[in-house]
């Protein structure tokens, strides 16, 4: 009987295979990207025209120098802010021309007429911490997003956040122009009107 040794496999091509894999991963991986809250700053205008805003259409949010949150001059816990902002935006207290057909709020006459006129005013102190400021910003953005999600689901059967995600996705199969128009539509239903005053100096 002849001696049988296991035939040795030529490993010379192993490196080539490894390189192939390396190149595959190099091409297909995306390095983790940063994420954050996107905002648009208002342009610097020298003389601001006087616009009359009804008091009830204004939602005052203030963060003082002790990082305390004041909503309409009353102290509030950060976890209640989102619901308070949503109740204000979605109130729909207007009638006639100002009426809001899609709002599901209480229609309180002391609160906003419709989402298009509702303005959230955010004031902070120079001593306010950045962490608190971001927390408040986050809650306010969450309020807008939740309302937009609700309307997007009602009208198009998909949440607003998903629509925006699809818009950025290169592999999205649908028509992006329609998607863009839909996003615009939802945005115009709940426009982000967040005014920020310059920090108070105290």
């Amino acid at each position, binding site marked *: *009987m002849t*001696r049988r*040794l*296991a035939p*040795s*496999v030529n*490993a010379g091509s*192993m*490196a080539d*295979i*490894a390189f192939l*894999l*390396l190149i595959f*991963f*190099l091409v297909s*991986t995306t*390095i*983790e*990207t*940063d*994420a*954050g*809250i*996107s*905002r*648009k*700053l*208002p*342009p*610097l205008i020298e003389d601001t025209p006087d616009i009359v805003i009804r008091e009830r259409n204004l939602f005052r949010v203030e*963060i003082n120098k002790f*990082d305390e949150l004041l909503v309409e001059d009353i102290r509030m816990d*950060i*976890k209640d802010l989102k619901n308070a902002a949503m109740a204000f935006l979605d109130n729909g207290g207007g009638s006639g021309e100002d009426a809001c057909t899609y709002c599901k709020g209480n229609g309180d006459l002391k609160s906003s007429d419709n989402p298009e006129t509702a303005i959230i005013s955010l004031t*902070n*102190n*120079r*001593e*306010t*911490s*950045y*962490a*608190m*400021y*971001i*927390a408040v*910003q*986050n*809650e306010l*953005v*969450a309020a807008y*997003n939740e309302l937009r999600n609700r309307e997007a689901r009602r009208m198009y059967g998909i949440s607003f956040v998903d629509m*925006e995600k699809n818009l*950025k996705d290169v592999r999205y199969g649908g028509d992006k122009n329609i998607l863009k128009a839909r996003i615009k539509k939802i945005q115009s239903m709940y426009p982000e009107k967040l005014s920020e005053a*310059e*920090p108070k100096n105290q």
Partner: protein
Amino acid sequence: MSKFKNKKNTQLPEISTASLPDIVFMLLFFFMVATVMRKDVLMVENNLPYADQVEKLDKKNLIMNIYAGKPSSRYHLGSESRIQLNDKFADVKDVQSFILEERRSKREAQRPFLITSLKVDEHTKMGLVGDIKKELRKVEALKINYTTRQGEAKNNLK
């Protein structure tokens, strides 16, 4: 009989080391996927606050980074928050020239889409952030992004 004899005499075959590079490559892949590349060397403390309503910043080449926070302890510059632009400590008034410089280095078509990413330490006071924002408004760099870590906003309040 010869069968048994044969077995006794055979030496253990050498362990093949051909798969060693593969293992090394696997490790390489793991680290490649897990690392985040950073362009600037941080000179300030940079613990970003948490937020969950975030958008991703996909286009890396369209982003201008402004860092702010306390100077790292190795610089012995006290605890007053400072701005860092491009590996250097900077003043509030330097922000304008930084933005203009960055803008000039980009192609004409890209300029309207530039986003300023504010990477600000959570312990920074809003006064400094407000000053930066005011400077940005002066040079019409209006698109900003407060870069945050993913997490619930209440993590910020400790």
